[in-house]
């Protein structure tokens, strides 16, 4: 078991765990609408499967938000 921070909140997860798996664990409805930062570095979508998370990693999910005028 390892502790990581997701959008500022601590989550206890089982390693090994890659970014794609973390997205699934967090029930992100539309992964295509999310941008991911690991330890304040943005990671490309095609790296989500290969990036293995470690204890104390900080992951941020940033969501596309479009509205405003309409």
């Amino acid at each position, binding site marked *: 078991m390892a502790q990581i921070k997701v959008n500022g909140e601590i989550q206890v997860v089982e390693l090994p765990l890659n970014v794609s798996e973390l997205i699934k664990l967090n029930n992100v409805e*539309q992964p295509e609408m999310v941008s991911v*930062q690991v330890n*304040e570095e943005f990671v490309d979508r095609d790296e989500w499967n290969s990036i293995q998370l470690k204890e104390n990693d900080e992951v941020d999910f940033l969501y596309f*938000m*479009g*509205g*405003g*005028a309409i």
Partner: protein
Amino acid sequence: MYDFTEQQIERYSRHILLQDVGVEGQEKILNAKVLVIGAGGLGAPVSLYLAAAGVGTIGIVDADVVDLSNLQRQVIHFTNDVGKAKVESAKEKMLAINPDVKVETYHTYLDSSNALDIISNYDFIIDGTDNFPVKFLINDACVMAGKPFSHGGILRFTGQTFTHLPGTACYRCMFKEPPPPGAVPTCSQAGVLGAIAGMLGTIQAAEALKYIIGIGELLTNRLLTFDAKTMKFHTINTRKTDRCPICGTHPTIDHLIDYEQAACELKK
């Protein structure tokens, strides 16, 4: 030195009283030029507060006319404005609040052919638009022209905003390219709590005023998000990305792009 009239001293007294603003700060506001893109949910509060603050020149870009379904959140438009061009409706209210300000209207869509030209006249740009193609266009145009801007987005009960200054993280540092059109929930499915537009728009207006006066810490290299259902605010630290296709070390974008717009019309 700006020659304040007695009426102006009174009108702006609550700004002038602030140690960080004073007469000098108010003078900067009166000399400033801010462009608001979108006269909708975000553009409404932004334009009202910037006009009230006395921002000397405010440009406003919007091609639409006021629709009844806008009135739930676009507080600059009134019931008898339905059918009127949004930029005209907005201009009337801004001048009614403060005849000191000059309002320039652009009754047009912002696209790759006019974006650089329009923003070139302004010191600070507000993104109050509703769709990703224009959000990316504003980002790219501002990065290319070296203009600061405030990004804003709202959806359902949530909002997010950040401020870009040349050299700080841009929208493409965070989101490389627009989401596939099919992935975007349609506006009719998504909906938005009207008051969220006010919460986010007033943050954008405050950022513009802070930038103009030169005070405080702007929302640069930070993405502020909030969820009104829990009233939790969260700030994500970001930074300029070397791989960013527009502001990175080897940019691949050298011209403005008109992305395909996802259909976002309420079926009537």
